[in-house]
């Protein structure tokens, strides 16, 4: 991960000097992660792809504003988070900008893909995630699926670490109750 960050910094330096190919290489490293993060947030493949393209375009246009290239990934996901919430606000103008609707989207936010696990388990997990609030769900996505540290999550979500932990711990307690109940473990 450290080597990757070093290489990213090199590519960022080249992209800042106008090297589009270096930026395309940077995209190829992160596009899958950004796409899956957005897919789990917005629950729609088409929107997730459109948003991913917007994210990388905005990142390119603002690359010079990135003060520390070592924090590129958190900065990139911050843009992705903002783009997703922008979309929610456009689709649901009645929202005051605090986030998407509580009810899950029609496509279902988690993505089963070509899972090798039993369908029942996939459905249980999807259903459990759907019952979380959007903030709790995003905290789980950033931590469990994207592997960010609490400090990075706080940077992406623009909130204190204590808030991040509170959302994540509440979500984990709820998920644990459904996916690993005390008397029926071995999901």
């Amino acid at each position: 991960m450290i080597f990757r960050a070093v290489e990213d910094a090199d590519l960022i330096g080249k992209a800042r000097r106008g090297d589009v190919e270096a930026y395309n290489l940077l995209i190829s490293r992160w596009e899958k992660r950004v796409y899956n993060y957005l897919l789990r947030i917005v629950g729609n493949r088409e929107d997730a792809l459109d948003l991913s393209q917007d994210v990388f375009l905005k990142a390119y246009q603002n690359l010079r504003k990135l003060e520390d290239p070592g924090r590129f990934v958190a900065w990139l996901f911050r843009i992705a988070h903002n783009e997703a919430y922008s979309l929610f606000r456009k689709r649901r103008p009645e929202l005051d900008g605090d986030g998407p609707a509580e009810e899950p989207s029609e496509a279902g936010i988690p993505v089963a893909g070509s899972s090798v696990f039993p369908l029942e388990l996939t459905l249980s997990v999807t259903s459990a995630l759907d019952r979380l609030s959007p903030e709790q769900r995003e905290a789980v996505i950033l931590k469990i699926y994207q592997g960010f540290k609490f400090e990075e999550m706080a940077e992406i979500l623009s909130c204190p670490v204590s808030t991040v932990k509170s959302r994540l711990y509440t979500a984990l307690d709820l998920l644990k109750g459904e996916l690993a109940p005390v008397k029926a473990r071995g999901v």
Partner: protein
Amino acid sequence: MSCSPFDVRDYVLRELTGEERRQMESHLKGCSECREEAERLRLTEAALLTLRDEEIPQRIGFVSDKVFEPSPLARWWQALWGSAARLGFASAAMLSVAIVVAALSRPAPAPPAMSRTELARLETQFQARLNQAVQQAVAESEARQEQKTRELLAATEKRYEMERQTLMLQVEENLEFLQKRFNAARMMASAQIGAAR
């Protein structure tokens, strides 16, 4: 959970430092309640991770577009100020240009007026000096050549003398060897004659 030194969730989510993890693992060995909590959290995480990432349906890529790129002048300016080496090179180049401009802009001194006789005298002097220099160069060259010949001759004589001495030594050795063989043969013959008698 209150009995554990750190939050079990932080432990399972890999947010503890190495030392904190070791303390936590030590605690879990002796606390079945915390151990069960950690196990449930691990099962929850494992269940969540059964949802795999999808491949992106279409690769994202950009082509070079002037709309999104800074102008060449802006790029050059930024690159210049962004690199100490380039800035130093530019400073040196500017200083060189300033020196050249100053040298070219200074008026050259006017040549002094010179009479024909003076010119002829200078030409004669120049020719004499040239002849003298050529003669000196030829003499030096001949002297060098002579010296080299002498050195070669001396080296050849020395080598010849060494070869001659070596040859003489070999002859002496061969002669001595033959003398010894002759003596040995003579002694054997005397011994045989004595025995026959």
